[in-house]
């Protein structure tokens, strides 16, 4: 009874105060008889929060903006075998026809590919939302509109930083996001732009926690997610859908990682990822459940003598043809790419890869002067890198193949605005077959606006020395074309900037 009286009193106070408040502060805005045009077209979240509230009226939320642009002009010099009347014997074309398929082992990242992304993060120290707009091409500079190269919103996720209430560094991410494990560089994916262990493309969650213990820090990361959709049954593979494979099923990925870091000197990580499909909506419901699991370990060592990455991974595939690109191994998107590039068409997606990778980066000036060197003078940078993978497959033609790529790069940055570099890459698509090997010699001169500027403008010439059985992909969709003479010389002019 007493509680009921209390409630009535509160309601009466609220009712009495409402008209008084309305008289004191008349609403100058137009009444809303419906939703405003800017309201998001999604169901309301609970509790409902109006979208139109100005950021300045909300405590401590700010907008943060980052981005990355890699903008190359790339020309391939092609010797035409049988020029028609009116056709020159030498063709200059873009893009170049070279053995650098991004989703294959041959990819080295020695020739720049266009990439742009804009990261918008809005939030405060506890909660933030990140949206990333990304593209692999730019319509004003491209010859045609390819919808698959306009990624639109490539990532969108919320980050909850719960370190304060939990008492240790603790973060939860929820949304659509990319995960990359086995990054070979200090802060990036390394010289090959390829995560050694795996990449995940899912909508789901990740939880990261760190437990400090003296000079050590123990790290744990857990994640789970699936793809937002799957190619519907009956979908005809075509350019606009990136030649989707309708045989892949709804794919889920679970992953767990543990590591230990010692100051900023060493970090050791153990990784386990498994991606699987158990979908009855595949054509006829007859596609077997598939699975790709990856076990890996990697180590980063940093100090006066540079940065060393060592990594190893074991990928096991079982009926992997139905596993989608929710997981990528060596940039191969899911089971179909794994079969095409490694396991072979007669493997039924069954087999394994044993992969290792190494990258060593040395700054000579840093080694000589150590902490007295701040990066504001000339330097020589040396980088050595390589990835190898051994294939075990149920397809006898692919079983036992060992693929290897190694490279070296020396950079002399001699002015605050100029430097030169030489890079060598050697790729063996089958280590025991010289005809399936090629080398790339790249010479580069680059300009930048200051010693440590985050911009770079590079003029590059690359020469390809190809084995007789090194083929390129031509046409649409790109397929291996043994009749086409690959370009041997490639010129590029690129600008890169990130912030």
């Amino acid at each position, binding site marked *: 009874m007493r509680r009921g009286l209390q409630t009535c009193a509160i309601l009466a106070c609220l009712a009495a105060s409402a008209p008084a408040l309305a008289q004191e502060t008349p609403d100058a805005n137009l009444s809303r008889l419906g939703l405003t045009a800017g309201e998001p077209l999604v169901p309301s979240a609970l509790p409902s929060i109006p979208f139109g509230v100005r950021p300045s009226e909300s405590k401590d939320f700010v907008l943060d*903006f980052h981005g990355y642009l890699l903008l190359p002009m790339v020309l391939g010099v092609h010797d035409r075998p049988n020029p028609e009347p*009116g056709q020159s014997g030498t063709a200059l074309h873009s893009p170049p026809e070279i053995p650098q398929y991004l989703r294959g082992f041959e990819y080295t990242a020695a020739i720049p590919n266009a990439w742009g992304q804009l990261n918008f993060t809005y939030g405060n120290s506890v909660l933030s939302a990140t949206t990333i707009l990304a593209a692999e091409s730019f319509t004003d500079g491209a*010859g045609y509109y390819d919808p698959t190269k306009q990624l639109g919103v490539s990532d969108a996720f919320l980050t909850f930083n719960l370190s304060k209430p939990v008492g240790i560094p603790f973060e939860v991410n929820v949304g659509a996001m990319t995960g990359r494990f086995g990054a070979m560089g200090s802060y990036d*994916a390394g010289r090959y732009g390829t995560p050694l262990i795996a990449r995940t493309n899912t909508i789901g969650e990740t939880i990261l926690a760190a437990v400090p213990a003296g000079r050590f820090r123990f790290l744990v990361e857990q994640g789970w997610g699936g793809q937002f959709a799957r190619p519907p049954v009956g979908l005809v593979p075509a350019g606009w859908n990136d030649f989707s494979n309708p045989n892949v099923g709804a794919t889920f990925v679970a992953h767990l990682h543990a590591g230990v870091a010692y100051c900023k000197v060493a970090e050791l990580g153990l990784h386990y990822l498994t991606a699987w499909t158990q979908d009855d909506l595949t054509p006829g419901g007859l596609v077997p459940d598939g699975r790709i699991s990856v076990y890996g370990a990697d180590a980063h060592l940093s100090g006066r003598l540079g940065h060393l990455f060592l990594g190893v991974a074991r990928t096991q595939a079982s009926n992997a043809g139905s596993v989608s690109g929710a997981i990528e191994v060596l940039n191969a998107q899911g089971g179909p790419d794994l079969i095409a590039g490694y396991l072979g068409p007669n493997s039924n997606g069954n087999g394994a890869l044993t992969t290792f990778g190494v990258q060593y980066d040395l700054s000579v000036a840093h080694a000589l002067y150590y902490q007295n060197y701040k990066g504001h003078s000339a330097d020589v*940078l040396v980088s050595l890198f390589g990835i190898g993978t051994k294939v075990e497959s149920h397809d006898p033609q692919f079983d036992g193949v060992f693929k290897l790529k190694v490279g070296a790069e020396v950079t002399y940055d001699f002015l605050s605005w100029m430097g030169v570099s030489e890079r060598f890459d050697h790729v063996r698509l089958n280590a025991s077959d010289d005809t399936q090997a090629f080398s790339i010699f790249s010479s580069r001169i680059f300009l930048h606006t200051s010693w440590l500027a985050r911009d770079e403008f590079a003029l590059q010439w690359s020469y390809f020395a190809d084995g007789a059985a090194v083929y390129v992909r031509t046409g649409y969709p790109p397929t291996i074309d043994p009749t086409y003479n690959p370009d041997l010389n490639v010129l590029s002019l690129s600008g890169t900037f990130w912030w």
Partner: protein
Amino acid sequence: MSPAAPPVAATPGGRAPSFGAPAPDGEWSFRIGGRIAGWESFGIGRRPANPPAGYSGTALHIPSFTQGRQPFFAGAGATLQLQYGNPIITAYAVYYGRFNGPQDQGYFTPANGPSFGQAYLQVTPEPLGALRMLFRVGAFTEAYSGPGQWGWGIFGPMLAVRGFGETSNFDYDVTPDLRLSFVHGVLAVPGVPTNFVRGDYNAWIEPGVSDYLQHAHLGLTYQNQYAFRLHYASAHGTDERPCTAFTGVTNPDCPILTALNTRPHDGRFDTFLAEAHLTKDPIGQAGIALGLWNFDHAASVGDGIWWGLDWTQGARDMVTKFLGPNTSGTGKVVAISAEYDTSLARLLWYPRNFDGNGPDLRIAVAAEVFRTIETDDPSYVDGSGYYIGTELEYRALSWLSFTLQGYGESRVAPRYVFLNDATTLNTSDVVIMTPGTRWEAFSVNPGIRFHSDWSSTDSIQIIYGRRFYSSAVDNNPAEPLDRDVLTLGGYLQF
């Protein structure tokens, strides 16, 4: 790695800190600009010849079913211009998005975006004495030689180039009054795979060709009032459509032909332009530009030279419109374009300064005359034509203007006009034009415009358009063109 890090390799050489590395503070700034615009017009149709039984009433078309220039750019969408940088280097990204959903336009059009349109880096080094420099690297479009005050005008620039590449700009002050400018650029447009299927979302593509171009520009500006500029651009196309397609051996009939039904052939497209401007208070701005376009098997050249005459898109569009559809893509076109822009208030207030915050009549008048001086399409030999246009705006109040836009064009008509999507002469859907028939479309478009202030960059406009066509234009009695058009639209620029 953080999900926010880009999926790219380390920078060449590993010289610079990576994306995820801690960033130092500095003089960095971020700016968002853009334009939000929406225009829609509906045309009031006319009764077709031999209408089907039960036909009645007046047809209303959205979009309007017209030919000739519209007083607005059709469609609705937004352009976001994002820039981030410091006084030396700035990154620009332009993001396009137009309505493309079935709820807004009845069907899905992926080419409407959203998409990254342009992205480039701009470096402005410290001046070297009187020499100032600017370098641009990335994917972008640049426009040159428009007789309007700001390079565009009523009929647009006579040259626009686009692609991936660079442009280097140099300005040198010879004297305090005389400035010499020089620009040079190299661009490449990635090609389209030979067997790319031309889809509805990609109507304008020429598969199997890629092109590269260079362009150079020289300008003199005296007292910031007199300007004279020369422009040159040369695009080369590499045509790799194989005559061995489908069979593996050379086919004398070459199964994959160009859009002009010619055999694959490397091509070239050159542009030579000269322009002069006078910008003086109170008389306003007068500009004149002369142009020569030279085509050599240009069906095999892509769209590195993007705009030419009358907003044409790339070499193929220029060829089919000015050399004729029955050509090999070889020929020459010349044109002269002029525009005059003035403000009546500025004239009346002189020598006092008029800052735009008061009633005014703004006048723009433009004309463009062209002639085909070489072509192998008989219909277009010595073909000539012209465009005329005027845009008047009487700013009566700070929030209200009355506008009048008028446009006209007249040019030689093609020998054949295909109807109902027909593509061959072996069909009844072809109108054979009388020799000498001209393609003519004129329009008068009075309107009312609302804006938030005298010089604000926003507008809501209502336009009524009355259109006039020659028989070569309105040539299908079963589908007569709309002659009355109502338009409502607006934009906000920020």
